[in-house]
C-alpha cells in the first residue's frame, strides 16, 4: 500500500512573491501562463488537483 499525504497543500505555485510563504514548497514563476504550466506539470507528477486560491495563487492538493 502506498502512503501519501492527502488533504494537505503539497505545493504552491504563484507569481505574487509577497502573498505566500511557509511550510509547503513554493514555486515562483513570472506570470499566470507559466503558473498554470508549472501547476499542470506538478499535478501530473504528484497526481494532485490544482486549486485556485486567488488570482495568481495556485495550490496543489492530493485527494
Amino acid at each position: 500500500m502506498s502512503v501519501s499525504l492527502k488533504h494537505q497543500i503539497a505545493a504552491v505555485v504563484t507569481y505574487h512573491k509577497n502573498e505566500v510563504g511557509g511550510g509547503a514548497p513554493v514555486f515562483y514563476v513570472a506570470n499566470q501562463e507559466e503558473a498554470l504550466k508549472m501547476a499542470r506539470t506538478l499535478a501530473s507528477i504528484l497526481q494532485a488537483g490544482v486549486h485556485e486560491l486567488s488570482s495568481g495563487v495556485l495550490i496543489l492538493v492530493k485527494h
Partner: protein
Amino acid sequence: MRWSEPAFIIGVGVIMGSIARLAMLKVDYRQYPSYPQAYTVHLAFGVISAFLGAVAVPAVLARDYTAATFLALAATQFREIRKIERETLQNVEETELVSRGSAYIEGIARSFEARNYLAMVTALLVTLTITVLNTFIPRQKWIIYTSGIAAGILTILLLRKSISHKKLGSMVMIKPAEIHFEGPVLMVGQVSMINVGDPLIQEKYRRYGMAVTIHPQDPNAKATIANLGQRQAIAHNASALLGIRKDVDTPLLTPIVRRNIDIGDLALIIVPAEPDREALLQAVADTPVLEGAVRKPMAAKSARMVD
C-alpha cells in the same frame, strides 16, 4: 448399490438449493462478480449450504439430533463468506478510479452472505415438503417430488423478490441540472462542488460535464441520502455505468456528490465517457439504497414533531 430414499430426498434438496444460489448469481448493475473464478467459488459455497439445509430434516427423522446442529456450523461458514467478499473488494478498492466506498462493500458482502442462507432455506423447505408428503401419501412418489420441486421454485421466487435491494429512484426525485463556474468554483445551482484551478479541466467540465440534483421525498430519504457511503455509491454507480473521463493524474475529474446543507438535496457532477442525460438519470435511480445508510427518523416521535 441402490439409492436409499433419504439420500434421494437430500439429493433433490441439494439440487434445488443450488439452483436457488445460481438464480441469484448474476452480473448485475453492481458489476460484480464478473469472472468464472468468482462464479465457481460462490457456486461451490452454494452447493455446500444447500447440502447443510437438505440434511437437516432427514437427520432429525433419523433421530440424529447432533447432525441437525450442523446448521449452526453453516452460520459460521456464511460469516466467513462475508469476510472473504469484504476483503476481496477492499483489496481491489485501491485500483478503482472511483472507489465503491466501505458502506457499499459492506452491503455487497452482506448480500452474498444472505444468498447462502437462501440456498440453505430453499433446500430445507424442499426436503421438508417431500418428507411431510411422504408420510401422508407414501405411494404417490410422482406427486411428492413434483410438489417438492414446486415448493423450491416458489421459495426461490419469493425470497429473491424479498431480498432484492431497494433502489434510490423509489425514494427520491432526480432532475438534470446545469453546471456553471463562479471564478474557479464549480457550482450546481447554489451548491459549490469543487475549486478547479486549471482552465483545461474547467473546459472538460464545460464540454462533457453533467450534473443531476437529487431531491428526497421525505425526511427518511433525506437522512438516508445524506450518508457519505450512500453518496459514494451513487458516484461509483454512475461512473461504472456511464464510463468516466479521468485518470490517476486528474483527480479533479472524480465525480462528486455534495449536499445542499440548507434543504438536504444532493448534487452530483460527473464527466462521463458517454454524456447521455437519460442514461445518467437511470444510473442514479438504479443505485441500490445501502442497508447501512438507511435511516428512519420518522419512526420516532421527536422527529415527527419537527417535520
